[in-house]
């Protein structure tokens, strides 16, 4: 059996081995499944971390080459181990809580930002039949579990007891709420085409990638995702020239690492969602599905990085104008046109 071309079978095989193992050590089969899902979680977390490491390394290298520099070169071959060195450094640093901070909220905030991204990731299909957790209303699930992240950022901003953090947190939350509207509205066109909220079904429904039918929605989704992840050109929440580092000003050590992790996981989730909704998910010729899935996702992520090192930062009011006066009406227009066309074609 070729597990490279059939990760679903590979997954099933792993579970089967676990079940056998459980019966061997006289545990009920049920426990095997629990251990299985626990291992899936651990595995996913590892995958997450690896992806983030690749992204961080990629970002630094891409940034450097766009600016005619070399980027990290010293640790390992072409600086490959630089990220690992950074992680070790962050882990070893003291996790500091400022005196003015609201202790519990300050400590909890990084995890509140990270967990939603991670939870969203588990519902996105990586290949036919390979979804860590299959949710019937996958799309709604991603949108819903993603929302508490905003609260985490507000918690961080408020609990630091620092005006830069507070301003950063407020800006970030305002931005994320504003851009959630066009983000969700742009997705509705896809739902109408596919007639389902199930992400796997949406991928299966795409005879041609939906970007052909919904180019406007794709562009809106892309812009809104950049804003949702607070990245340049929409990075006013952490505009270092005015706000030091926004809501992570007071954070260091492992907690800072979690914010970092969360930002990249969120980027990955939104890119993966864009791939699933508009680019046909795992579908593609010749190569196995999961390769296509990762290739497309990293393609979108490359776009994100390209944006970052190309566009200047927007002002706060320009950002709101773009969201409310351009993207939201366009998203509505797209929805109306899609609906009309669907009704007329029927």
């Amino acid at each position, binding site marked *: 059996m070729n597990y490279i071309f059939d990760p679903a079978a590979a997954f099933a095989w792993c579970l089967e081995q676990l079940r056998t193992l459980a019966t061997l050590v006289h545990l009920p089969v049920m426990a095997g499944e629990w251990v299985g899902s626990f291992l899936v979680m651990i595995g996913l977390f590892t995958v997450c971390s690896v992806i983030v490491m690749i992204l961080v390394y990629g970002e630094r290298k891409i940034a450097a080459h766009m600016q005619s520099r070399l980027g990290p070169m010293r640790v390992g071959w072409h600086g490959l181990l630089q990220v690992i060195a950074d992680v070790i450094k962050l882990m070893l640093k003291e996790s500091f809580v400022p005196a003015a901070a609201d202790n519990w909220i300050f400590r909890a905030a990084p995890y509140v930002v990270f967990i939603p991204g991670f939870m969203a990731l588990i519902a996105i299909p990586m290949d036919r039949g390979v979804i860590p957790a299959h949710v019937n*209303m996958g799309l709604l699930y991603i949108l819903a*579990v993603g*929302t508490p992240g*905003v609260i985490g950022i507000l918690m961080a901003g*408020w609990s630091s007891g620092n005006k830069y953090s507070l301003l950063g947190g*407020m800006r970030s*939350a305002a931005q994320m*709420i504003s851009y959630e509207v066009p983000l969700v509205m742009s997705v509705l066109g896809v739902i109408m085409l596919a007639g389902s909220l199930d992400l796997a079904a949406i991928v299966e429904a795409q005879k041609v990638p939906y970007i052909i039918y919904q180019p406007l929605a794709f562009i809106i989704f892309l812009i809104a995702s950049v804003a949702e992840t607070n990245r340049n050109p929409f990075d006013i929440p952490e505009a270092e020239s005015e706000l030091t580092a926004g809501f992570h000003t007071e954070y260091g050590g492992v907690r800072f690492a979690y914010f970092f992790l969360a930002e990249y996981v969120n980027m990955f989730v939104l890119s993966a969602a864009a791939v699933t909704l508009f680019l046909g998910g795992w579908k593609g010729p010749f190569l196995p599905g999961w390769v296509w899935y990762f290739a497309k996702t990293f393609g979108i992520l490359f776009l994100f990085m390209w944006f970052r090192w190309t566009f200047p930062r927007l002002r706060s009011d320009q950002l709101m104008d773009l969201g409310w006066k351009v993207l939201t009406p366009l998203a509505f227009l797209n929805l109306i046109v899609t609906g009309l066309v669907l009704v007329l074609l029927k």
Partner: protein
Amino acid sequence: MMTTVSFYLLSALAVVSALFLVTTRNLLHAVLALAVASLAVAGVMLTLNAEFLALVLILVYVGAVVVLGVFAVMLTGHFKKPTLPSSNELKIIAVVVSLALVTLLGGVILGQPAVTGLKEVSLDTVGKLLLTDYVLPFELVSIVLLAALVGSIVIARGKED
């Protein structure tokens, strides 16, 4: 078994965070407790197979209501120590009345024979019902939202400029 345990755990979490919500004097903590309570209630709904309702609850309460609440607390300018000015003088009466209500309603609800044979409602059905039997309220909600939008803007704008 698993579901039952999670049901009770989540319910307990919802009750505890709701109690914290009404007793804490730090407004921001209260709003965050509301977020936890909403998430717990959404979890309870998940254990009862009401997936759609749970997700919408998270989307609306955690995504919108709580975030607006946090905004409001921050914008009122008391973000350093957002404590309520005074304690509730009617605390004891409030406790007695709530307990009486809980006992009464709890008694009535427990006395009710359990509803059985419920079928899981798919999202398809919900959508179709909203656009057939319940199309009037569904459309009317849009006017409610329009009125709320217009009215809030007029009031927030304050003096005519």
